[in-house]
């Protein structure tokens, strides 16, 4: 399959969630990319919610595990919606050696690219209904947390914004009233994601959480108000941590995007 066909499987025409699928990894699905073998994720799906149409999942899991768990949930009736938003590589040079490719980028998203490609056929065969409830896929490594940034690396760290997700209103119109956050090794949502969850909570969605590394069932929790939540320039403010704060006028504690 070429990248257009692959993207069409993950973001099919007519699905109410397809518009939110992030295209950047699919845009880099060149035929020369090497598939990167990944260890299987051993997740017990018995504790996961059923795809009752009223529940959306947010899988904030490291690397390709999000795709693997997303596919497992697809078999239960959820539609995985990739929200990966990092540029994989700084050039379009063909990657001939995975050992060389991996260290180039600060956040190695090649395993995710590979997993998305590998799982495409299986996802297509599931013939999910277009209105299957969503399982949004995020890379928990996106901010390079715990990673020592060496000077020569391609800095492709990323953040997620509230605007990367449908609004609470939209979710309600699709019959979704509950969101379950799935993470590994952590209980509290990451700072950037907390903004989206808080907005959903404020929009009368029930927010629950669970962990895949511990036997856990979804538990309801209160998303506390993140720092500067609701400010005009939240998109910019969310990205702090990737850049040092700057001085400047209102809203410029961190830079806004350069693109004018």
């Amino acid at each position, binding site marked *: 399959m070429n990248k257009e066909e692959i993207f069409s499987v993950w973001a099919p025409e007519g699905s109410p969630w397809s*518009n939110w699928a992030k295209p950047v990894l699919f845009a880099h699905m060149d035929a020369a990319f090497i598939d990167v073998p990944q260890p299987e994720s051993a997740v017990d799906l018995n504790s996961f919610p059923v795809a009752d149409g009223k529940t959306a999942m947010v899988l904030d899991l490291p690397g390709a595990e999000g795709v693997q768990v997303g596919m497992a949930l697809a078999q239960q009736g959820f539609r995985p919606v990739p929200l990966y938003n990092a540029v994989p590589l700084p050039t379009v040079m063909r990657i001939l050696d995975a050992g060389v490719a991996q260290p180039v980028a600060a956040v190695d998203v090649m395993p995710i690219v590979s997993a998305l490609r590998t799982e495409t056929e299986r996802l297509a065969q599931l013939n999910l209904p277009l209105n299957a409830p969503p399982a949004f896929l995020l890379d928990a490594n996106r901010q390079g947390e715990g990673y020592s940034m060496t000077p020569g690396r391609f*800095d492709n760290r990323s953040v997620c914004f509230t*605007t990367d*997700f449908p609004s609470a209103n939209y979710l309600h119109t699709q019959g979704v009233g509950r969101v379950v956050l799935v993470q590994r090794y952590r209980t509290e949502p990451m700072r950037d994601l907390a903004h989206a969850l808080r907005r959903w909570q404020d929009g009368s969605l029930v927010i629950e959480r669970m962990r895949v590394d511990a036997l856990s069932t979804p538990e309801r929790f209160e998303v506390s108000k993140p720092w500067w939540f609701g400010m005009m320039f939240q998109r910019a403010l969310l*990205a702090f941590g990737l850049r040092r704060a700057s001085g*400047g006028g*209102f809203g410029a504690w961190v830079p806004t*995007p*350069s*693109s004018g």
Partner: protein
Amino acid sequence: MDAAAFSEIRRRAVLEGCKWDPQVGDVSTLARFPLVMKASVWKRLAFQVEQLASEANLAEEEISRRPELLTELGLPSALRRVLAGEGPVTPSAGHVVRFDFHFTTDGWKISEANSDVPGGFAEGSYFTALMAEQFPQFRSVPNPGEIWSEALAAAAGSGVIALLSAPGYMEDHQVISFLAARLREKGCNAHLAKPEQISWRDGLAHLETAWYRGPVAVIVKFYQAEWLSRLPETCGWKYFFRGGKTRVANPASAIISESKRFPLVWDRLTVGLPTWRALLPETRDPREVPWQRDDGWLVKTAFCNTGDTVSVRSAMKPRDWWWTRLSVQLNPRQWVAQRRFESVPVQTPDGPRHVCVGIYTVNGRAAGAYTRLSTTPIIDYAAVDAALLLADDDE
């Protein structure tokens, strides 16, 4: 347009045209219809942007020689010192500017010039070309991505081009990725990087990355000048502006007309700016005008790149307005007050929309457009991108 045809266009735009943010919240940011402009209007606006670019160029030259005027622009002090300093200015690899035109009750007016880091090339080029194929009865405006990448390729010759942006900002990554793709189509060796990965040796730029180490012929700095100046001095950021021998785009002087406080020094210049004066609404220091109680004024920061700091009392929540007032009062030199114009919405298949046609100049010549539509008069990151096409006047 037929839904299937538009779906195909969207897919091609996101997969081939580096349009990686086609959805913002619940808003699909690609319009299913083009904005059609009379060819005679385009011709007039294209002439005006060339005048604007020429006048700005002369003004920037004069202001660069007069440090007392640089202090009025709201620049970070470190950057101001470098711009006012001695030594040769780093050579330019070209200059792309985007002038944002709005259709108002007084005709077409500009709200600002994006002189330092204008974006929108993917939308104004690739997406527009795809839409144009669907509407053969209309003509296309020039392709800004093509013209700008041609200019950069010519400046680089056979050398390496480094395209720099800030990590974490997909909006910026997609701009340089799009330009890099166009440059590679022309046989150029283009690399994405960040400013800290440039080292300067005897004024010559070298890229120091895991995938390429070596000299650079041209730097495309898609990274705001005021941010650069906040990097550690050891990064050698000064060479992007002064003392460098490697060609850089956009040039150091671009930050002058990028500042929304640029109009505040016009009366002290020897050069005239008649086109700017005719097209830009009255712009004042916020301490001089009653913007807090008069809704005829808006305020914005001196370096308001995405429209996010454009502040109008009647369009804001009380809490946000309170913060704006506080910030302006604390840092008035980093804000500017501007007379509001009355934007006239145009009828579209989605209802009335306010229009912003950002017209590029590349090295002083008109070079296509990036067009956005908004439900409100303020155009920001959530506006919808539309293709601009031209109709002959008798149509």
